[in-house]
Structure formats: structure tokens, C-alpha cells
């Protein structure tokens, strides 16, 4: 178990290292940091002084090491556009994005998995076909279109829900939450549905196809041939085997929710990291861009680690093989 964790950690570190390198290259070589930081009337000498001060004349390797060192302390310098520490900006916006992503992910899982199981088991039923049609529309409608459509119906025509913003938020320690106020919850409905819908349909289709695959296997047939009840076969044997691949891909999907939040946050003017990232792209605010990249990568790596652990719990083959591997 320990060796397994260590190996996964090493892989995660490699990923983080690679992403950090990309972020560093962006930070240092895309545009001129000095040029972005100073006004037009800054003299050449002043610029050079700043350059020296920032360490931009040091060897690339030294700069990279320094970049990583700073990144690990959560320091990404000043935003060109906001003229404030990037870390502070992210700290303010992180809760909004995480809350939105969490609710969306929950929605996708809680609705998507049962729908997938159902359509897998009754593949020719009317409701299954309805679900499948619905899911195809779900993956065909771009996220922003779903958002616009929801706004059009529930905000413009019906006027039930707010079309933008986060509603009232309450500050709990360092965290600002919209989950505790009525307007905050109301404001959360449309964005989380928008963000979760695509993942929901993906998860549903994935669970369905895995379920169909598993139902074709010999051990399911054998379980039926032994007279086990449909319930035991479908929800005991089949579902458990379906979960193994589903966990992996679902994990990745949940991770990508944080990145997809960029679009949802833009449509609903949700004050999160994604919206800030997009503004940073418009304004070529490289520190924010590279920090965002690293942060998202970090979330991915963490989620991946959790997924690996779950995998390990569910699949005995993995446990034993690794046990053997450790023995050598």
C-alpha cells in the first residue's frame, strides 16, 4: 500500500513538475514581464533595474528553481492587471469556484450514475431511449448555450432566478460561502445545473456502456446460471464491476469540472477563478494564467490520487498484484 502511494505521488510530482515548467515558460518568455509591469514613461535604466531586481537576468535554471520555490509558497507575483498579489486574488475567488464545482459534481454523480445503471439494465425500454436522447442533446449543446437557454427561460421569461452573480455570501473564517443564504442558494441553481449537465450526461453514458459490457461477461452469465436473483446479479455483481472503470473516468470528469467552470462563470458572471482566468487571457495577465494552470493541475493531481485510492479499495486484483510486486 505504501509503495503504491509513493509511486503515485512520484507520478503526480512529475505531472506537477511538467506543468510548472510550462507555467514558468509562459511566465518568463511569453511577452516581457517588465514591459507589462511598468508604464510607457519608464526609462530604460529603470526597466533594467527592475529586471535585475526580479532576477530576470539570472540563468533560466535558477529562475525556474525560484519559480517553483515561490509557487510552493503560493506566491505568483503581482497581477499585471490588478496590481495585487496573485495569491490574494485566488484566495478571494477560490471558494466561489469550488462551491460551484462541488455542487455541479454532486449533481452529475447523484443523477448520472443511477440514470446510467437504469439505461444499462433496460436498454430497450422507452424511458431508457428518452434518457439516451436527452443525453445526446446534453453532450451536443455547448455549456454556454445551456446557460443562455436557462437564463432566457428562468431569468428573462419567468423571472424566477437571478441571471448573474453569487447572491449574498457569508464569510466563515477565510471562506466565503453562498450555501447559507437563500439568495446564495438561488443564485447557485442555474450555474450548477449548467456546469453539471454535460458531466451528468457523460457519466450516464459511460455507466451505461460499462454496464452493458459487464452484463455480457461470462461471470454474469454464470451468476445467472446459478439462479441468483436479478437484483443480486445486476446490483451486486454487475454494478460493482461497472464501478471500477467508472471511478477512473468519473474522477477525471469531476476534475475537468473545475476547468469547465471558466465557461459557466463567464455566462453567469460568477465571481470565481475561471472568470478571472478568462479576463487574464483577454488582458495577457500572465501571472494569473500560469498560477491558474498550476492550481488546476494541482486539483487534478489530488483528485487523481483520490481516484487511485478508491480504485485500490474496489479492485482486489490491484491489491494483490501490488502485494506481490512489493514482495520482490
Amino acid at each position, binding site marked *: 500500500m505504501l509503495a503504491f502511494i509513493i509511486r503515485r505521488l512520484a507520478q503526480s510530482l*512529475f*505531472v506537477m513538475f*511538467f*506543468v510548472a515548467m510550462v507555467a514558468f515558460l*509562459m511566465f518568463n518568455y*511569453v*511577452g516581457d514581464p517588465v514591459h507589462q509591469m511598468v508604464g510607457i514613461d519608464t526609462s530604460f535604466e529603470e526597466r533594467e533595474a527592475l529586471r535585475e531586481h526580479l532576477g530576470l537576468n539570472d540563468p533560466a535554471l535558477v529562475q525556474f528553481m525560484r519559480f517553483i520555490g515561490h509557487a510552493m509558497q503560493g506566491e505568483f507575483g503581482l497581477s499585471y492587471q490588478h496590481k495585487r498579489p496573485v495569491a490574494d486574488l485566488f484566495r478571494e475567488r477560490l471558494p466561489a469556484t469550488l462551491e460551484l464545482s462541488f455542487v455541479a459534481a454532486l449533481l452529475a454523480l447523484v443523477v448520472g450514475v443511477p440514470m446510467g445503471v437504469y439505461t444499462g439494465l433496460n436498454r430497450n425500454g422507452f424511458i431508457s431511449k428518452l434518457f439516451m436522447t436527452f443525453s*445526446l*442533446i446534453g*453532450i*451536443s*449543446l*455547448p*455549456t*454556454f*448555450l445551456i446557460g*443562455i*437557454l436557462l*437564463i*432566457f427561460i428562468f431569468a*428573462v421569461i419567468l423571472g424566477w432566478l437571478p*441571471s448573474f452573480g453569487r447572491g449574498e455570501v457569508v464569510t466563515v473564517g477565510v471562506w466565503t460561502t453562498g450555501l447559507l443564504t437563500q439568495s446564495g442558494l438561488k443564485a447557485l441553481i442555474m450555474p450548477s445545473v449548467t456546469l453539471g449537465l454535460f458531466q451528468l450526461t457523460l457519466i450516464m453514458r459511460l455507466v451505461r456502456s460499462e454496464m452493458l459490457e459487464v452484463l455480457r461477461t461470462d461471470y454474469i452469465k454464470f451468476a445467472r446460471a446459478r439462479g441468483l436473483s436479478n437484483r443480486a446479479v445486476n446490483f451486486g455483481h454487475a454494478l460493482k464491476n461497472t464501478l471500477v472503470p467508472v471511478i477512473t473516468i468519473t474522477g*477525471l470528469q469531476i*476534475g*475537468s469540472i473545475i*476547468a*469547465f467552470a*471558466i*465557461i459557466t462563470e*463567464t455566462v453567469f458572471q460568477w465571481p470565481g477563478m475561471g472568470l478571472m*482566468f*478568462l479576463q487574464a*487571457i*483577454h488582458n*495577457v495577465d*500572465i501571472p494569473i*494564467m500560469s498560477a491558474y*494552470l498550476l492550481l*488546476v*493541475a494541482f486539483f*487534478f493531481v489530488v483528485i*487523481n490520487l483520490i481516484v487511485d485510492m478508491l480504485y485500490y479499495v474496489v479492485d482486489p486484483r490491484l491489491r494483490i498484484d501490488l502485494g506481490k510486486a512489493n514482495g520482490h
Partner: protein
Amino acid sequence: MWWIRACGSIWEKPMDTEKLSPRKGWRIAATMRRLADSDIFYSFCHSPVTVIAALVTLLIFTSALTASWIAPQNPFDLASLDLMDSHIPPAWEDEGDKRYLLGTDDQGRDILSTILYGSRISLMVGFLSVIFSMVLGVSLGIISGYAGGLIDVFIMRIAEIQISFPAILIALLVDGVLRTLLPDAHSAQLAIIVLVFSIGVSGWVQYARTVRSSAMVEKNKEYVQAARVIGIHPVLIMTRHILPNVMGPVLVIATIHLAVAIITEATLSFLGVGVPPTQPSLGTLIRIGNDFLFSGEWWITIFPSAALAILVLAVNLLGDWLRDALNPKLR
């Protein structure tokens, strides 16, 4: 007891002794003949949804291609625009105008015409991105599968890292970086090239993985060794042999990828980092129209949205069907 085995091997002769020889001359003719009689053609004709999807796709493709002839107006010819005609609702509304079936936007552009021109840009970017991805992915896949070793590890590691990030994020980043590096990226043509490049780069992994596994199988076959002996570069030979083998899966990936590429383009344009408003794609149109949604001028954004949704849905349906039809397991 060896003879039990021996009998077994005599017995279990495959029923299908038909051999497919990849001779070039009759391959095309044979392919056509096979197609007409194939399960694929059959399943196509017997799936009304697929037929409708194909017809819709065809309709959108042709009307996009012939936009300059069939569109009632050239929305980008400033001379033909009349600001007096702006903000007109669709023809069937009370204040509608017969000349503008789907209404006009704030600059007096006919919505129907902008949709026709817009889908042309959307489709162009979509197709070019898919082709770019395909070429990149297939070549990297063959190189990775054939070379093996460090090159393989390197390419596949990058693929692994990239695939764990959503394509849209990769495209956004590449787009953002390129825009910074290229000073006049805001010119329409360059913007489209940047867009194609970013979407293309974000989608190569799937092609590469499919082709790589096929290449690894082929690599060890005798004819590749033989080719090396007679001095033909094995990669050339493999390309010729692998490509026909992976055509099916690659085609499926490409079809589904086309839908994804169109969505990605629309999303980037909607986010304001795609094609500029001077040459709007469907995504740009939706972005522009979105500002008027609250003032009740819904047609400016809803019609392009519907066009985009129908286009993507139709392509997705085709891809879905193709995947099932080419997957022998599901038959």
C-alpha cells in the same frame, strides 16, 4: 492425450475462410461493393434518426458552402446594411419584416444571412482543426508505436498529462499564448489560424493512442522486417498498412471530434477569444446576441444558438451511429 488437442485444432476451423487481400487495384471497387451490401449501409438505412441526421448535416454543409449565393444579404458588406433596419424581430412577429425572415441584429444585419455565413466559418474551423489533429495524432501515433523506447515514453507521457486536462482549457491556453506572441493576432485571418492550431493541438491524443497500439502490433510483423531488408523505410511501409487498418476507428474519432471542435470553436468565440466580430462564427454571433437577450430581442441570439445546436447534434448522431456500426461487438 496430445491427440485431444490435435483434434481440437482440426475441429475449430473458422467458418469464415474469406480472405481479404489488400491489393490496391480492386480495393476501391470492392469497397464500394462491400459498402452497398454491408451491415453499415444496412444499419444506416434502418435508422431513421441517422438518415435524418445525415440529411440535416448535408443541408447545413451545402447551405454553408453556398452561403454567398443563397443568403438574402451579405452581412459583411457594410454598404448593403441599413441601420434603419436594425433590431427587427422575425417575420412572423407583429413588427416583423418580410425581407428579414429571422429578424435583424443591432447593425441591421439579416440574422438568417449571418447564420449562413457564420456556420461557414464554424464548419471551416471545425474541419481544419480536425484535420490538423488527425495528421498530428496519426503521425505521432505511428512514430510512438514504431520507435518505442524513450520517444514512445515521452510522447505518451505528454499525451497522458494533456488528456487529463479538458481540451477547452488547453485550447484556451494555447490561444492565449499565441495571441501574446503574435502581435497582430486580432486580424481575422490570423485569428482563425490561431484558433485552428489551438483546437487542433488540444485534440491529437485520441488519434495518437489508437494508431500507436495498431502500429505496435504491425511493427513486429514480418513484412516490416522484410521491408527493412530491401531498403524501404519501414515507417513508410507501416503507414501504408496501418492506415487502412485504423481507418474505421480514426473516422469515428474524427466525426465525434468534429462535433467537439465545432463546440470548442463556438465556446472560444463566445468567450471572446475566438474569431473576431468582423467575421463572426456561430459562437461569435451568440456572444453578440447575448447582450440583447435581456432587452427582449431574443432572436439575435436564439436563432444562431439553435443553428449551432442542430449542427452539433446532427454530427454527434452521425458519430454515435458510426461508432456503433463499426463496433462489431455491438452488432
